[in-house]
């Protein structure tokens, strides 16, 4: 790894700059995005608790199959599409202004995209609430909802494309103004995510525009189910990394600073983000391991590439642990483990990072089982998988969204938190709730408890034995919902009260060796786009082409809209 090891002479430029008092140009934009995401999140958490109640041995109100699947659809859409997309867009705008220290190009376009995304969200949400779109967030053609549902989601995606373009333009303009300099890591990672998202959404966009929406409107009476699943799988894995990117950005560029230390290696950060871009895309077939329509050979290749996508996460674990060690030792920690205790765990960003890693341990471990080719049969579509992605999404992703929101909110509202205790309580209840909810799911999932059902027959002795575990996980769910509401309160309170005089910007972590001149490969995405294209061509080329070379029989559309 021949990177130039420049002496760390460059004095930290950002240190002790006079507190910026000017309001952030993107402040209102960021707040609007975050609030849309958070509103969807709060609703989804409450629905989630009701769903767990409905599945438990305890009688739940409003419990019909129709209500249940409406609720599951709304929960999935709100969490996976609305919370994530809006939060990521908002955070991206924030990073573009604060890390590049330039105004965001195209502020008006950003507001336009926001309005478009919001309109799409409302369209999709109303379709689900009216009972015309109970197809869950993974769609399942030949079941077909009202066209408004899909068109609404397409609008959200189009809004996110506008964001991607703005991020790329912002980085280019900065590079033109700062020739030869390394793009700040936070922005480099944000653009990596934007580039990856453009690739990622191609699959679902093709599925919706060419297969599902024509069927929903009534132009097509039939659909090639295998093709639609394959196109969705193109999106299905990388979308998780789209959600995860902000968490990793916080690990690399916010946590070391919050801990009072330095980032161990800026180069490794760039490399990790690039590896995510490369290997999170050509692996989606691992969601179709149990499907008949793809051959063992292509499943094997994508399993192999999936094993490689664990590499950047495992590298990150080391780099961030080392960064924590630096901070701990700077604060007087000694010995092999003393630095752990010396870390300022009372700071939300530090606490959240620690808890996120604990949940990543269980979530990632579950993921390693899931991706293991034939071994996937042991757990596919059981509660094990539900536990896995709730730990990754609700654990690593969302807890870092909390931490990011807490970190940036003072600079947006101009007020500092008066009661940090509430922030810590919120993070801890989220962590405890998530573990209490998901550990029983792993256990029942291994015994074969299947997914996506509105009710279990607890008169069956085997299912009855799961009952107590289901109730334990329901308690975890209630804790999670309480934590979610506390999060809303914590953010809302800062708009009205709190200690005024907060700085209107934040500082990102410095590396032990701040990057000097870096190779073009670590400062842009030209090379990597070609390699992504090559990987996708070889990993997905034939698996998609086979549906056109030798078309399978199609299935009749089943309408889920009255």
């Amino acid at each position: 790894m021949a990177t130039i090891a420049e002496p760390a002479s460059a004095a930290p430029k950002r240190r002790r700059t006079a507190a910026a008092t000017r309001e952030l140009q993107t402040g209102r934009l960021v707040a609007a995005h975050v609030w849309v995401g958070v509103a969807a999140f709060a609703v989804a958490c409450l629905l989630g608790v009701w769903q767990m109640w409905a599945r438990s041995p305890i009688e739940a109100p409003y419990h019909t199959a129709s209500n249940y699947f409406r609720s599951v659809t709304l929960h999935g859409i709100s969490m996976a599409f609305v919370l994530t997309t809006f939060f990521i867009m908002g955070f991206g705008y924030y990073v573009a202004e604060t890390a590049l220290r330039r105004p965001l190009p195209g502020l008006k376009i950003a507001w336009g995209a926001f309005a478009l995304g919001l309109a799409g969200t409302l369209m999709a949400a109303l379709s689900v609430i009216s009972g015309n779109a109970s197809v869950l967030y993974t769609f399942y053609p030949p079941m077909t909802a009202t066209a408004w549902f899909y068109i609404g989601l397409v609008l959200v995606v189009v809004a996110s494309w506008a964001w991607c373009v703005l991020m790329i333009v912002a980085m280019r303009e900065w590079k033109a103004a700062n020739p030869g300099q390394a793009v700040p890591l936070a922005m480099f990672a944000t653009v990596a995510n934007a580039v990856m998202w453009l690739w990622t959404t191609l699959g679902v966009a093709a599925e919706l525009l060419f297969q599902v929406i024509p069927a929903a409107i009534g132009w097509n009476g039939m659909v090639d189910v295998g093709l639609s699943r394959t196109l969705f799988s193109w999106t299905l894995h990388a979308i998780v990394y789209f959600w995860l990117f902000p968490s990793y950005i916080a690990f690399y560029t916010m946590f070391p600073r919050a801990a009072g230390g330095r980032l161990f290696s800026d180069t490794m950060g760039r490399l990790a983000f690039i590896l995510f871009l490369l290997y999170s895309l050509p692996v989606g077939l691992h969601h179709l391991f149990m499907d008949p329509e793809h051959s063992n050979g292509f499943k094997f290749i994508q399993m192999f590439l999936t094993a490689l996508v664990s590499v950047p996460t495992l590298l990150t674990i080391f780099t961030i642990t080392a960064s924590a060690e630096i901070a701990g030792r700077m604060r007087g920690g000694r010995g092999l483990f003393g630095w752990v205790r010396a870390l300022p765990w009372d700071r939300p960003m530090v606490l959240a990072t620690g808890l996120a890693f604990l949940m990543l341990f269980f979530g990632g471990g579950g993921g390693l089982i899931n991706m293991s080719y034939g071994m996937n049969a042991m757990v596919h579509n059981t509660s094990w998988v539900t536990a896995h992605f709730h730990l990754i999404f609700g654990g690593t992703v969302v807890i870092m969204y909390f931490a990011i929101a807490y970190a940036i909110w003072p600079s947006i509202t101009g007020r500092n938190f008066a009661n940090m205790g509430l922030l810590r309580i919120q993070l801890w209840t989220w962590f405890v709730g998530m573990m209490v909810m998901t550990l029983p799911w792993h256990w029942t999932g291994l015994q074969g408890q299947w997914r996506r059902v509105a009710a279990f027959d607890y008169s069956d002795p085997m299912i009855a034995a799961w009952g107590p575990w289901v109730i334990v996980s329901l308690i975890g769910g209630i804790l999670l919902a309480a934590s979610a509401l506390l999060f809303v309160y914590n953010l809302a309170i800062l708009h009205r009260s709190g200690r005024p005089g907060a700085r209107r910007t934040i500082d990102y972590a410095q590396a032990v060796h701040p990057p000097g001149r870096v190779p073009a490969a670590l400062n842009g995405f030209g090379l990597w786009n070609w390699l992504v294209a090559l990987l996708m061509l070889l990993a997905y080329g034939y698996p998609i082409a086979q549906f056109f070379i030798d078309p399978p029989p199609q299935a009749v559309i089943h309408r889920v809209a009255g």
Partner: protein
Amino acid sequence: MAVSERAILKSEIRWAWVVGGIVAVILGAILFAALSMGMNPPSNREFVDPKTLHLSSEFTEANLGTSVDPNGRIVARMITTQFEFVPNCIVLPADRDVTLRFASPDVIHGILITGTNVNTMVIPGYVAQVHTRLTKTGDLLMPCHEYCGLGHSQMLATVRVVPPEQFRPDSQGRVSCGDDR
């Protein structure tokens, strides 16, 4: 700075070897299962038209359930449809090679047999197929594990795994649960 960036990257590379080792162990174990036991995900690019499934010979109503081929192969055929399995109960012997074949006339379904490695999606347009050898006996639950509509939660079947000596095909080579299930 006392520690050069090169030294930092060296420690990262040392760690990368650990990571590489983990990945190699996992891939090795997966390969071992694939090579020595034939453990694969259930792939089967075999088409069957969902629109005329009930007119096909293999998945005609009278041909469903467990049967033993003239050459001794044990094959169970089932329909997964909204919102039940047809038949609702099948008999299989333990410790023998068996093949399960599923097809759907309507939407996507998925099946697993609790406590076993049997698991496959049933995609309209394809015959979903699992080769397996069951290791325990008893009445096992076989639920539909993929959302298939509002009746999804009630879509369950029973797999009766019997000791090999109790698996007795009739004159046509067929074995059924006998009761109405």
